[in-house]
């Protein structure tokens, strides 16, 4: 019973580390997906006296993905449908050129400001609408959300590290006795530590498998998927190969580090 308790305390500590890492990974993915979504729907409107070629527009800033001229036909048609073709052409020539600029990704407010300045460096551009009011709020909300989740993950990590250090002391006490006894019969240090490393690796494997089962369940859970769909994003909650490799590695490294600290901190009894 005591042995199961000792196993559980490390497994639970590892589970909380792995869960906090996965929460951070999923949040990052969700924010990236949401930013991509926003970038698709976000554009900057540029008004120019003269025609600006697409190549010239793309040269202004690397963030610009595409530039399309907005046709004035609809507006002219609304103004007067009885206007003859000659007048329409004259109006078209006199009207400023409107461009809709699509960006590669959802920019930060600073990037929007730089882009606006660079657009104004082109003398023919005299108006840029970057929708900065709405854009700033959305971006700040995203940053705030990411910050809160990151802080939450860091707090979990800190609490877990404290738990692990407490666990370390218990293990040090528990394993010291056995290591001392083995030492009295001439066991070399590697042999004295074998049991400890085996336990650490077994606990790491158990914690990784439990996390795998838990996350596999969440990754197909309709309620969880629905939450993401409700904000028009699709996120991989658990990449069974890549994520598992990361989590398993973290679990093994933490456990082996713990075992190493115990071995290094072990003092032989007189």
């Amino acid at each position, binding site marked *: 019973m005591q042995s199961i308790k000792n196993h559980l305390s490390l497994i639970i500590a590892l589970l909380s580390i792995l869960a906090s890492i996965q929460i951070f990974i999923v949040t990052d993915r969700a924010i990236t997906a949401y930013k991509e979504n926003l970038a698709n729907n976000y554009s900057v409107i540029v008004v120019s006296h003269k025609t600006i070629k697409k190549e010239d527009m793309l040269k202004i800033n690397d963030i610009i993905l595409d530039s399309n001229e907005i046709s004035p036909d609809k507006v002219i048609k609304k103004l007067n449908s009885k206007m003859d073709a000659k007048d329409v052409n004259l109006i078209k020539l006199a009207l400023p050129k409107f461009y809709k600029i699509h960006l590669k990704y959802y920019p930060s407010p600073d990037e929007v400001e730089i882009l606006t300045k660079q657009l104004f460096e082109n003398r023919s551009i005299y108006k840029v609408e970057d929708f900065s009011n709405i854009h700033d709020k959305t971006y700040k909300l995203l940053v705030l959300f990411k910050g809160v989740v990151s802080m939450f993950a860091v707090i979990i990590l800190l609490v877990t590290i404290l738990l692990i250090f407490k666990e370390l002391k218990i293990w040090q006490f528990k394993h010291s006795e*056995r290591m*001392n006894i*083995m*030492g009295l*019969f*001439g*066991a*070399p240090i590697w*042999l004295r530590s074998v049991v400890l490393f085996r336990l650490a690796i077994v606990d790491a494997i158990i914690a990784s498998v439990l996390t795998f089962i838990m996350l596999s369940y969440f990754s197909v859970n309709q309620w969880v998927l629905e939450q993401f769909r409700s904000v028009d994003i699709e996120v991989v909650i658990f990449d069974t190969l890549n994520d598992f490799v990361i989590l398993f590695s973290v679990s093994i490294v933490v456990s082996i580090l713990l075992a190493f600290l115990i071995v290094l901190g072990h003092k032989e009894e*007189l």
Partner: protein
Amino acid sequence: MDKVIMAENLSLAYSDNETIINKINFSVDSGDFVFITGASGSGKSTLLKSLYGALRPKNGSLIVGGVSLENITKSKLNFLRRHIGIVFQDYKLVKEWTIEKNIQLPLLINGYDKSVIDNQVDSLLKHVRLMHQSGKYPLELSGGEQQRVAMARALAHNPILILADEPTGNLDDYSSKLIWNLLESANEQLNTTVIVVTHHIPDTLLIDYKHYHIEYGKINAVH
């Protein structure tokens, strides 16, 4: 006759201020059965600790099994300990291991084959009358039974030297008798050198033994 232990001007201390054993000279021949007696705090257990390298000499020289212990390296100390069997008053059994695995310990450390280990453990369990308890854990046994397990462990690898610190200190008559019989048998049949630290020597012993007494940091031969 080969000397298993040779101490010359040996001083032992836990700190610089207090010397427990002061410049003693003594030796133990191979196959001797030796008792070391003394009052509580006289330094008899300290002397025993120095014999298995848990306490290094402060001054003088100490050679055990041909290995000098003054500046011994960890690997040499491990090598020496693999040829010694130790019995403690508090048994020092690994609580999370079965008694079978506890007895296997020195055999595993010495790299014996599984078949040899199994045979040896079976034989020892019969000798210490614990055949039916092999799967139990130390805390499920009485003090006397635990000490019998510790005794079996000390004998498992046929050591050249057995060191016993108050082996029957708190035991019932049955277990005490069994332990003394095992120590006598090892000495007589396998020529194992035995050194026992104790408050008093049992009067039921059938073998010849040497007796040293420690007092005021000095060791004196009684007979």
